[in-house]
């Protein structure tokens, strides 16, 4: 018990004194997950909107695929990216394994389906009523799409934040493809695993607190956005 309390004290010390290693780990986590989510949004938002707006042959199959991908286990993604990037893999020549870029690729694969899926659900759920109102007021096809996207902006933002929450807290994928290299590919979650194993509880707790704090901030943002985006008819 004493160890845990001591750990907490040390953790606060490490955080408040802006320990360079803690800072480095936190910033790397933010950079990797942030970049993955930005790239995931660039791909996921338009794909989700198109899937929500238009019907085409085989759409159900694509929708099922996206939904399955939303719950993809991070370790499996890590394994897949590892095989792609390893020396003997198809992208081995790029020499990306055990780099932050490899971590970004893995998290991008995790984030994109979430953003796509949430956008798709949002667009298709408000599609009908908003769509009809816009059409009845004389909107052209282009104006209609723009209106629907504007109406779903809150859900899209929520999707982005959910995806960020998922990737910043995952450990399996980045552990496999990043290798948890000190000062280079060590992120919050992988560092917690390592420090716990080494018995460096203070550092592990400090990193854990930072992670929880980040999750808390993300949740606050999500709740705020959802409140702001509430609709009543």
């Amino acid at each position, binding site marked *: 018990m004493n160890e845990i309390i001591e750990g907490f004290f040390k953790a606060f010390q490490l955080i408040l004194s802006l320990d360079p290693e803690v800072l480095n780990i936190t910033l790397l986590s933010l950079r990797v997950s942030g970049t993955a989510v930005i790239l995931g949004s660039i791909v996921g938002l338009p794909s989700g909107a198109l899937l929500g707006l238009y019907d085409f042959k085989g759409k159900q199959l694509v929708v099922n695929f996206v939904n399955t991908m939303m719950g993809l286990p991070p370790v499996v993604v890590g394994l897949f990216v590892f095989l792609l990037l390893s020396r003997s893999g198809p992208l081995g020549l790029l020499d990306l394994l055990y780099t932050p870029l490899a971590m970004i690729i893995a998290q991008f694969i995790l984030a994109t389906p979430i953003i796509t899926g949430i956008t798709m659900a949002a667009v298709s759920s408000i599609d009908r009523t908003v769509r009809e109102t816009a059409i009845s007021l004389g909107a052209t096809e282009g104006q209609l799409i723009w209106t629907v996207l504007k109406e779903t902006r809150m859900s899209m933002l929520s999707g982005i934040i959910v995806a960020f929450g998922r990737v910043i807290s995952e450990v399996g994928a980045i552990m496999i493809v990043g290798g948890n290299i000190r000062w280079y590919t060590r992120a919050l979650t992988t560092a917690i695993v390592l420090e716990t194993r080494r018995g460096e509880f203070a550092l592990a707790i400090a990193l854990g607190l930072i992670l929880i704090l980040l999750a808390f901030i993300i949740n606050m943002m999500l709740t705020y956005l959802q409140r702001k985006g*509430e609709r009543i008819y």
Partner: protein
Amino acid sequence: MTILEIQHLYKKYSDKYVLEDINLEVGRGEFFTVIGPNGAGKTTLLRLIDLLDSPTDGKIIFDGIDTTKCSETEKIYLRRRMAIVFQNPVLFNTTVFENVAYGLKIRGVDKLTIRKKVMKVLELVGLADLWNRRATTLSGGEAQRVALARALVIEPEVLLLDEPTANLDPRNTAIIEKVILNVNKERKTTVVMATHNMFQAKRLAHRIAFLFYGKIIEIGKPEEIFTSPKDPRTEAFIKGEIY
């Protein structure tokens, strides 16, 4: 002069005819009301007139143009000459002002004109003070008045109203009735209103059509329909025996 002519109109959803052999004419500047019990096909008729849906058979002629032969682009331009207010209006998740301005914005109207027109129509429906409010925080009555303002601001030639006061309190009902009556009288806007409230039809309409299970039973002036209905089903509806 006729602005709207419907000839032998049929609409079928999955194997059931919702509208059968509808024939009617609406004159320019007329206040035309379609009454009938719930499920009679009133909403379907209004949706077809507003070109939101296509008929199974028959013709809808708007200002001399056969709408059934129009391309999608031509339909947009015809639709822009009309406006519809639904029973449960959907307001966009933005301010009252932006909601009302929508129709003008998509028509490329300049900002200054939009401002003037939106504020004027908001005054008309008694919501000028709420212009900056988030539309999603309004009460049902206020939301319906915003939807009416959004339809009126584009100065439609034909205003379509689908049970605009159903589920509203007497105060909001009175405001909406006053505004639509006013628009019909002063701007000479043609109004086609669907309602199951026959007293409302009697108060407002120049002519009334009684729609019953997809068929028009009779059309006439309010005094004709209410004092000497030709069909026993019309009489039964007026007496409140069917609703």
